[in-house]
């Protein structure tokens, strides 16, 4: 049982700083997901925790011990890699046992631990196989097994599900969540997939260009995104972000005035965030969209429509049974408290 603390952790390659001071903690048994687009520095952050990249400044503490200068093998961590990084020439058993052998553990204890992990992961019948004889999902399980047998203080996951097909990814996502809850091991999990992030995380760190834009529970980030970036990144389909202006009675977007709690001086330019799932069909609503494209998902339909006649494209989520014609103009409304406003310069959230 352990905690992980990052204090103003920075990373530079030469002059270029790629991680701009991340401060956060992972509580005992908590699963924290670092999510962001590719190149945002999330993998670098994880690799610094693992000890595979040196920390430029700041401190990494595992269970209260500063580990900046500690070798990866002495940090008591286990890592699951994106491509699994299984030793191709070793059997499943040897892959899991290797780390324990390196630690000079007794043979009987190694056997016991590997068999226990294999039981949890349903790998019992596959122990003698080589990685190439396994399916993608099975390899993924072996990679997990290799982490479990070590019984480490912290699990690190580096996009472990990216190489799996969509169906298997959903299944393994559930398995990882269950396993992590059962074992109660403190975990840091990196992904670019916001759905994976939302479903797995106890808390999320949304990274954008090397900085943590927001840290918090998934639903808090969904309901009150701190920046326009977080707003656009969390939630699927993505939030509509439109340029607008504050009015006495609300905010105006391309001529449509939405009733909203007034935030900021009238005339002030703002970025208006509207979630597709919060835009509701309303015959007398202020927003009129001309239907341009429909994505039918079955339960819902994602409607892409143009605001006004020459305005920006917006998306709205409508019931799957609703079948509008292309080119038809429809009226929508949105509840005032569901409107997010951001500063167009700093991209930060306005008001609460």
């Amino acid at each position, binding site marked *: 049982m352990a905690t992980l603390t990052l204090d103003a952790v920075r990373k530079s390659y030469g002059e270029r700083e790629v991680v701009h001071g991340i401060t956060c903690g992972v509580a005992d048994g908590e699963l924290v997901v670092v999510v962001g687009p590719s190149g945002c520095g999330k993998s670098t952050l994880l690799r610094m925790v*693992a*000890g*595979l990249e040196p920390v430029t400044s700041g401190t990494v503490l595992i269970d209260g011990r500063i580990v900046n200068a500690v*070798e*990866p*093998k002495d940090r008591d*961590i*286990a*890592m699951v*890699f*994106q*491509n*699994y*990084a*299984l*030793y*191709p*020439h070793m059997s499943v058993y040897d892959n899991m046992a*290797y*780390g324990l052998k*390196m*630690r000079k553990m007794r043979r009987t204890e190694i056997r016991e631990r590997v068999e226990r992990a294999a039981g949890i992961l349903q790998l019992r019948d596959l122990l003698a196989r*080589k*990685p*190439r004889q396994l399916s993608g999902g099975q390899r993924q399980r072996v990679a997990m097994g*290799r982490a479990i047998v070590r019984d480490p203080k912290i699990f690190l996951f580096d996009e472990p599900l990216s190489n799996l097909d969509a169906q298997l990814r959903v299944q393994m996502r559930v398995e990882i969540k269950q396993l992590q809850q059962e074992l109660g091991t403190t975990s840091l999990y990196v992904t670019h997939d916001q759905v994976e992030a939302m479903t797995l995380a106890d808390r999320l760190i949304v990274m954008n260009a090397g900085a943590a834009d927001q840290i918090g529970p998934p639903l808090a980030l969904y309901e009150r995104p701190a920046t326009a970036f977080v707003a656009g990144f969390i939630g699927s389909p993505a939030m509509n972000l439109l340029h607008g202006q504050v009015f006495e009675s609300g905010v105006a977007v391309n001529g449509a005035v939405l009733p909203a709690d007034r935030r900021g001086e009238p005339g002030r330019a703002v970025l208006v965030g509207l979630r597709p799932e919060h835009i509701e069909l309303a015959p007398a609503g202020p927003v009129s969209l001309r239907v341009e494209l429909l994505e039918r998902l079955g339960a819902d339909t994602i409607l892409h429509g143009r605001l006004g006649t020459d305005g920006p494209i917006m998306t709205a989520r409508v019931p799957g049974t609703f079948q509008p014609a292309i080119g038809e103009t429809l009226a929508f409304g949105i509840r005032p408290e569901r409107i997010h406003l951001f500063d167009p310069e700093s991209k930060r959230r306005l008001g609460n």
Partner: protein
Amino acid sequence: MRTRRGIWIPHAVLLAGLALVLFPIYVAFVASSLTLRDILDAPMTLVPGPEIVANYRAALASGTVSTSGQPVAAMLLNSLVMALVIAIGKIAISLPSAYAVVFFRFPLRRVCFWGIFVTLMLPVEVRIIPTYKIAADLGLIDSYAGLTLPLVASATATLLFRQFFLTIPDELVEAAKIDGAGPWRFFIDTVIPLSRTNIAALFVILFIYGWNQYLWPLLVTDSPSMTTIVIGIRQMIANGDAQTAWHLVMATALLAMLPPVAVVLAMQRWFVVGLVETEK
């Protein structure tokens, strides 16, 4: 119809190629089973004769007059030692040097790599005089060390291993680091097992390279006891006065072919295993 033609044309080409390769060897075999007089009686018969045991025994045990009575068995042993030391030595040196160049960051790494690379352009023949001088100064003339050491350093093998090591994913190195395997353990537990097909292939190539060496052994050995088989065959032919003992030359030539063939056959199993086991 088409499928039948599709089968027969490649077979015909293969059989023609096989005949081209095998016929001279067959002629050599026939010649090694005749007396010298039968060989010189043109046209030579293509039916094996009765002298086969006698000829091979004579060659193995006592060579010919022109080899100063040095038996072919001793020459085979010399060549075997030379080829094995060169092949194993080259692999033993190239593996760690390629490992160093690929997996470690040290000052002048690029310089080291290019230094090794440049020696590719300097084969033994080009640097033979300075190499001879060094070997002579070190007192290596007429010894196994002199025969093999200068040929052991190998840019080719180092480059080949380097190219292979570059394909080992970084994550594997990192997984090993987290598992607690240091550089040596990773080299022994992971890199070498993964390289074993490459090692087998290189061993065959290098063994044959060593076995077929001619110029260097010619220079660095004087005494008949150090003669290698390739030089021995040459000596048997290039004699001014006496008649060449063609029946013994042919027997020796066939004997000289056997060890390389044995190595290829033995290593073939490894190739097949390697091809089947290739990841992805």
